């Protein structure tokens, strides 16, 4: 098996809207891939196509080396969730997982307790899911996905609704899963999150893939970082900036100035400000290079 996910020429329309428009996607085994895009870019629709929840107008999907036959085939070795994780609200978390374990084959039934512990819901296993918060349902969604010992995880915004600690744990979990040989494809609209977890990224806009490759390549193509700087004399600082090469400066619409420069030139600018008697009161990264790249790629 050379690819975990292989989608070729996928097209899906809802009425006049082409939600997925000629998407080719390849994910290698044990890779952890971020699927990025703004709302409405087609990420969730693409995941639904991969799961076979919806049928493409054109194109084909192969998961774990097996061609998916329309919407009737079994998803052996594939797990995950799309949009938010949903369960039967009138049943407890444990009962939900036990039922899902049956639908996955008898071998998975014994791990329910272990998985509830894994996602931090051991104490809430007896509670009805109808009383769970969104974050708790997301955790349960991950447990439900892991129940069937997947070799490919397809997750739609898995950190949505999680608190900061839960988000950190989820990211760590995804990395550990990938390290253990599980292929992970997860969607997000947060570039920073993808940076934390992934080695490769696919960026979508208006149903099409506008970037696909390693993060290092994206960084290489990214523009210099942009910082926001607030000084004791912004007019003087602007004059000084014009004398330094490789530095672009413009007024920030909110406060201070925006400086685009690589690290060395930014250092030189800050030192020059100090020598000129201009105090630097604030200096922060306004937008990371990857975020800048993301916005450039996804802006209409």
């Amino acid at each position, binding site marked *: 098996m050379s690819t975990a996910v292989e989608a070729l020429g996928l097209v899906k329309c809802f009425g006049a809207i082409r939600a997925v428009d000629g998407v080719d996607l390849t994910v290698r085994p044990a890779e952890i891939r971020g699927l990025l895009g703004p709302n409405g870019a087609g990420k969730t629709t693409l995941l639904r196509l991969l799961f076979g929840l919806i049928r493409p107008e054109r194109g084909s999907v192969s998961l774990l080396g097996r061609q998916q036959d329309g919407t*009737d085939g079994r998803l052996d070795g594939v*797990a995950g969730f799309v949009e938010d994780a949903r369960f039967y609200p009138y049943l407890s978390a444990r009962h939900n997982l036990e039922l899902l374990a049956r*639908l996955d084959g008898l071998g998975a039934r014994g791990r329910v307790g272990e998985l509830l512990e*894994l996602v931090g819901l051991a104490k809430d296993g007896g509670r009805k899911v109808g009383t769970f918060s969104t974050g708790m349902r997301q955790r349960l969604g991950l447990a439900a996905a892991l129940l069937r*010992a997947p*070799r490919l995880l397809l997750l739609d915004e898995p950190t949505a609704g999680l608190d900061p600690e839960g988000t950190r744990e989820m990211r760590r979990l995804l990395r550990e899963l990938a390290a*253990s*040989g599980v292929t992970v494809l997860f969607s997000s609209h947060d570039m920073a999150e993808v940076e934390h977890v992934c080695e490769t990224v696919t960026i979508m806009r208006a149903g099409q893939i506008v970037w696909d490759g390693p993060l290092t390549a994206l960084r290489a193509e990214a523009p210099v970082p942009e910082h926001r700087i607030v000084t004791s004399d912004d007019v003087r600082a602007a004059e000084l900036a014009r004398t330094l090469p490789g530095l672009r400066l413009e007024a920030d619409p909110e406060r201070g100035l925006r400086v685009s420069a690589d690290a060395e030139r930014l250092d030189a600018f800050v030192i020059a400000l100090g020598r000129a008697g201009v105090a630097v009161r604030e200096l922060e990264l306004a937008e990371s290079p990857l975020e800048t790249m993301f916005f450039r790629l996804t802006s209409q």
Partner: protein
Amino acid sequence: MTSSSVSFDTFVEVEVKPPGAAQVVRVELSKLAGQLPTRVVAAVVVLAPFAVAGVLKAQGAVPADTLFGRWVHTSGFALPLVVLGFAGSWGFPVLAGLVAGDVFAGEDRHDTWKLLLTRSCSRGEIFVGKTLAAATCAVLMVCALALSSLAAGALVIGTQPLVGLSGTLLPPGHSLALVLLGWSIALLPTLGFVSLALLISVATRSSVMGVLGPVIVGAAMQLLSLVGKGEIVRTLLLSSGFDAWHGLFTANPYYGPVGRSAAVSVGYIVVSLAVAWIVVRRRDFAGSDAGWRSGWVVPARALAVAGAAVALLAVASSWGPKSVTAGRLEASISTTFSNLAVYQQKLLGRRVPAGAGLDVLPTCKRRGVSTPYSGQGDDWHCTLDVVGRQARQMPIGFDVNVRANGCYTAEGPPSVIGPATIRTRGRGVVPNPLFVFDGCFDTS
């Protein structure tokens, strides 16, 4: 999360066997058992017959407008048949709706289709599993209702012989067998309504419509069976199958309705499930109802089609051979009257030779209608000329209400046949079997 305590290697090495439809059935039955409506229905089918039996015993009244209703105090086997008759009118469609109407639409309500369809089962297995689970649950409910009705009748009233629909006395063992057979005949039409509930549930994606749909369809079929005189449409109505057991309780049992009911029910089941499967198979589970036309257009179209179908069937209801005719009624009512007259004499303690009966010459016709010798209605009048010794005839006039299913209620003149109740030897006061009596005949 506490991932540090768990090795992921254990997760990727677990062997997962393909579960198949049998596991889906178990899961769906477990889900049904976890839902309040199912539990309420289960409680009702088990307890309601005992409550009905208790109330009837305490009040001394009888549900005289239901077949076998006037015998509920005389034989415990009448109660399950009264319950079966009532369930055939409303109970089974309601039960089908409550059990099956939410099986598919519930996944839409809870947005859990994506949960189900991302497991190890194919759509086909899920469809088969859900369908079998709904059918199993419905069959279990019907069986529970049958057994609790039997138990309630036997415990509260007793296991006395039952007066059949031709006026003959059926021994307890025979009555028990017929009651069980009668209830089993109702299973297929019930499964027909379950299939309709599943189809409506799948097509509308609405639990409310899934639950109410079979009840509405059942009511429409009841109305259609009341109009027209033809046999074709009445035979094709799923609800007619709930009357098919009547023929078992006559002196000369007729099984034609049982066979036709089975064939019609299987037709409804096959067509409903085939259409439902096509809808499920072709459906895009796009979430947030993407691509699903909501609003009033779809329901309005469905309503218009349903209305047109009902109107067409109402027009067609007069087609085909006449189901209720004077000849059929005369043949049935004379036999029933003769048998009940013998039974009445036995109740009064008079010796009746074995095989004795009355010679009855019946004449039946309707009053004040253009078709006096056919059609259901409460305007039938039968004159039974009882031929006595020396060929003397004693005419007795009965007002008869004949229903489209071939069952009738005859009410005689008290001056000739005596009061509503009679005092017997050893059994106290019992209903006069000739005062008002029921019977049935084959309409085909």
